[in-house]
């Protein structure tokens, strides 16, 4: 059985109800589904959560390396020895993961803004891969001269596919930012929200649950508070998108 299948079965057993995972190619579609009430819960990036924090309710925040925090990495091809900072990538091709991603879009935009650059014209070409892992691939093969990637994804990939990450080199790490949280639609019944939250919080103490978390390279969940994502909110404010 696949990982998601196992996780779904585990959740169904704990929640005592049917669970359906819905996957989409970008955050935009997930946000739309959540806002329209077609799904109850979502694992979102911190950036879209911040932008819709009044519409969504925070359920839990995953713990990675025992912290509900992570970083964005800026990477270049491993054979590019000269690039030191993002400023050296002027006029180059840059790969983002998703326009609604914090680590894969917002942070590089923020970093350029702080350098006084206009992100929209700084690179000659940019493109979205739709996934962090594909950013690593695009940079690795030289399709892009640089890319922004979720540090959690890069580090995990370094364990399972070291060949992919070895083709890239990290030139910049963002400050620690709030880890992509689990959120619920705003009109979720309090009982259901709480049940789901308790199940997730107890996952680390459950044998099968901790095994599943191990597969995700996560240590567990904390309740978290919206203030955890203030850093992202500040970056979004600087970049100018609300």
């Amino acid at each position: 059985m696949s990982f998601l299948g196992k996780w779904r079965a585990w959740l169904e057993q704990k929640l005592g109800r049917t669970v359906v995972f819905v996957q989409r190619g970008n955050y935009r579609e997930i946000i739309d589904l959540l806002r329209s009430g077609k799904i109850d819960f979502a694992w979102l990036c911190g950036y879209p959560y911040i932008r819709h924090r009044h519409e969504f309710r925070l359920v839990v925040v995953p713990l990675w390396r025992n912290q509900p925090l992570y970083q964005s990495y800026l990477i270049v091809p491993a054979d590019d020895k000269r690039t030191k900072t993002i400023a050296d990538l002027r006029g180059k091709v840059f790969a983002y993961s998703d326009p609604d991603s914090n680590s894969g879009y917002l942070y590089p935009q923020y970093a350029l803004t702080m350098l006084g650059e206009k992100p929209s014209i700084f690179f000659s070409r940019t493109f979205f891969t739709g996934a962090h892992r594909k950013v690593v691939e695009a940079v690795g093969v030289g399709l892009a001269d640089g890319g922004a990637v979720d540090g959690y994804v890069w580090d995990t990939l370094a364990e399972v596919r070291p060949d992919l990450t070895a083709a890239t080199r990290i030139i910049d790490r963002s400050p620690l930012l709030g880890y992509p949280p689990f959120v619920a639609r705003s009109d979720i019944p309090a009982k259901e929200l709480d049940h789901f939250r308790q199940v997730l919080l107890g996952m680390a103490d459950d044998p099968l649950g901790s095994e599943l978390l191990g597969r995700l390279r996560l240590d567990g969940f904390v309740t978290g508070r919206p203030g955890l994502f203030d850093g992202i909110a500040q970056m979004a404010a600087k970049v100018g998108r609300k």
Partner: protein
Amino acid sequence: MIFRRNLSLRWKIPLRVMAAVLGTAITVTVALVVWEYDEMRQNLEGHAKSLGRVLANTLVAPVLHDDIWRAYEILQSARETYPAAPELQAEVVLITDADYKVFVSTKPREFPIGSNPATRGGAYAQLRTGLVSGDAMAQRVLEPADSPVYFVMSPLVADGVALGHVILGYSKVSFVPRFVGLVKRAALVTVLVLLIIAPISWVWASRTGEPLLRLAEAMRRVPGELEESRLTDLPNSGDEIGQLAAAYQRMVSELKNKQELERQMLVSERLAAVGRLTAGIAHEINNPLGGMLTAINTYQRHGSGNDPLALSTLSLLERGLTQIRHTVGALLVESKAKDRPFASEDVDDLLILAESEAHGRGIGVVVESNLDGSLPLPATLMRQILLNLLLNALAAAEEGGGVRLVVESAEKQLHLAVTNDGDYIPQERMDTLFEPFATTSERGNGLGLWIVYQIVQQLGGEIEVESLPGCTTFKVEIPYGNTV
């Protein structure tokens, strides 16, 4: 060149067979390689065109949405390898925009996004010229001169507008391993065939060449060793070689007959000359001899004196002259006009004579005669012939050996054959055997065979001798009825 021409058939045939096999293998391989190349080119073009069409259709959406990553993923999936036909895998796939800038490529490091492929020069510079010059909406195959790469270009069309091109670049070098494989296989098969053919053609060459070699060896002996050449074991088959051998055998035996005939003619001519000479001399001697003997005779009867010295002298002369007359008479055989016919009793008489001679040396004499009554042949001469031959045979026979006499009369021919088991007559003596005084015998006067020969000649017959070790036969054939 000379060496090749002089090479023995033993080598020539296998070498030619090998050369034929090799030639065939090379021709077939070259034809196969050419055919394979055409086939591969057609396959490749068909494959590339359909792949180009599919890619062009699929890539319209990503290009319109500027979705570089999606386009890259599609190109990657289109570059899947075909282990069975590695040449079908494109070396490079480029998607260019309307300005001939790289939108995305399968080799981003060589063809970065937004770069101009023409800056790489060579085939890619010519590619641009080709793109500009042709029909922008048609699929095309471009093969720039002196380029290791050639291209299949498919337009990216959306709503009748050309967005750019999908360019599949194929390496010509990728054909090489396939050709090498083909040539290797052909070489392997050729070597195997040669390994099988080599011993077969060797045997074949021996079978074909061996009779010819024997024939050639036999021919080398002509004319020096005619007999050896004739006796050589030659191929006895119905094919051309067999016919050649048969013709050669005929030629040799005819050559031998001719030599034999020439020798015989030489002998008989010489004997005839000797005969004429002796006859002439005998006549010249006989005429005065007769007068001299008559004179002595007359003097002895009617002479006046009784001088004892004169009488003894005359007696001496008479004896000497008589001996001369006998000798000359022996040289000159003359048939008497009147003679009784030859009868079976004559044979019996001769046998009695011969047996008294044979008895002393323990020689057995066998007579086979079908003679019954008499034949119209002069008895005296016939007895002379038989007596001479019998005495010769007895003299030649081994101590305790045997002599055989055959007398047969058939179809107006009298056949005589006298055989002894003594030493054979060597070839060098054969030519002068019948000449007078040619004998080496201590007994006899050397005229026996000469007399026999003369008589046979006079009677219109023939005499011949066959002499092998332990068996020497004199054969005489004399016709009767027509002559005497």
